[in-house]
């Protein structure tokens, strides 16, 4: 399951978890985000040891600008407050590989 991040505080709490955290930065008007959404959902069911969150860059724009989002979708992997990987673009295989190797 993918949890919604609605505030900047929720975002900080999420990324500071001592687990692999996958964040999907998306926009409701962005085609590629819609295309990859089902795959991200499937990954959240498959990789149960990781936590999945999503951030609507228009609704929570302070978070988007804090991490410097330039294009959507952008996926960021965090662990204990550190960003360990970033993928820009709807690239399911790159995302899957990143999650799998972070969990390995």
């Amino acid at each position, binding site marked *: 399951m993918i949890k919604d991040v609605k505030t900047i505080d929720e975002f900080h709490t999420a990324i500071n978890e001592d687990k692999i955290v996958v964040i999907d930065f998306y926009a409701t008007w962005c085609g*590629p985000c819609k295309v990859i959404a089902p795959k991200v959902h499937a990954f959240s069911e498959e990789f149960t040891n990781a936590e999945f969150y999503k951030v609507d860059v228009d609704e929570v724009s302070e978070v988007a600008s804090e991490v410097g989002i*330039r294009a*959507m*979708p952008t996926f960021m992997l965090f662990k204990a407050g550190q960003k360990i990987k970033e993928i820009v*673009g709807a690239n399911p295989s790159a995302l899957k590989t990143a999650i799998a190797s972070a969990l390995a």
Partner: protein
Amino acid sequence: MTLKAGDKFPEGVKFLYIAYTPEVANIKACGIPIPLDFDKEFHDKTVVIVSIPGAFTPTCTANHIPPFVEQFEILKSKGVDAVIVLSANDPFVQSAFGKVNGVTDESFIFATDPAAEFSKSVGLSVDLPAAFGTRTARYAIIVSKGVVKYIEKDASGVAGSGVDAVLAAL
């Protein structure tokens, strides 16, 4: 207030732009406008600002911007760190204009002067008939380390704001 060579470039100037990334170009991602903070990014650099009344309009597309794109390497060899193409068009239009001109270099930026505010503040805006509204005039400015080295406006056609004149002034 008008700007002339020798003046300090105004502080606090912020434009908007969509950063080029390959993913945005091949539609695997959607760009989002972000601020371009002139002081922060360029206070110690040499920048050429080329302003056009409208992206995709005849003179700008045919005569004004392509020569800058073609001669970007030469501009860089003469010490230019970045070129900013400015207009009052929104960042999505500017981003598309950049793609159409085949530009992929992150130091060749297509940016928006929101509501032509910066241009108006230095006497370089122009009021055009209804479909266009207030736009940025056709001009070129060379700013080096926060100081205006060159500033030329063209009332019609491309002369002082063209790449040849800019290169001669570098």
